[in-house]
């Protein structure tokens, strides 16, 4: 039970770390943003996993059902998703501007251009 009960979290952690790796290891700015999205989406799954209850139902109250999953994580993640979208759109807007200013979206090439100035 111990392992089975945690197995879920561990895969989610693997997902999180994959996203995190994309953010910090790739030099392409667009890919970084995509990685950030993967990272955040996995954190969302972690949160939602916390709220799941065995044999639970979606927290929309109905007659005759008493076992609902916890709605609070859902609310938190709704907010977090919105924050994530906001960050993504802002980040991508920055990428577009960077590309116009530097003509590249590779981190090291941008760095080289700044150094050579």
């Amino acid at each position: 039970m111990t392992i089975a009960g945690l197995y879920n979290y561990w895969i989610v952690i693997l997902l999180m770390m994959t996203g995190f790796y994309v953010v910090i290891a790739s030099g392409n700015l667009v890919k970084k943003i995509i990685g950030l999205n993967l990272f955040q989406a996995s954190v969302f799954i972690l949160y939602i996993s916390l709220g799941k209850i065995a044999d639970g139902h979606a927290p929309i109250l109905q007659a005759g059902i008493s076992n609902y999953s916890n709605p609070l994580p859902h609310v938190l993640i709704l907010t977090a998703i919105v924050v994530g979208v906001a960050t993504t759109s802002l980040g991508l807007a920055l990428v577009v501007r960077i590309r116009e200013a530097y003509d590249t979206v590779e981190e090291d090439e941008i760095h080289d251009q700044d150094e050579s100035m």
Partner: protein
Amino acid sequence: MILTIVLATLLVGMTAALIRAIKGPTVYDRILASNALGTKTILVIVVLGFLMGDPSLYIDIALMYVLIGFIGTVAVLKVSEFGDLGQSRSRTEGDQP
């Protein structure tokens, strides 16, 4: 029981589509695969709704998915065809100042 079988086949179908999405080889294969995944996602959500006992809550998600998924596909194709979200082909030469 039947629903379980349907769900299982849908998951198999999703796996196949995912393999196609990863293998490619062209962009269009990936678009096709994600499209197929989208269709199967809609079905999975509906079937899950029936399995979990309250389909009417889940069907709204499926309905929205059909609508939004179409927009996603159009956007993908537009970018792959024109390289841009904005342009419409009929205007490419016109109205230069």
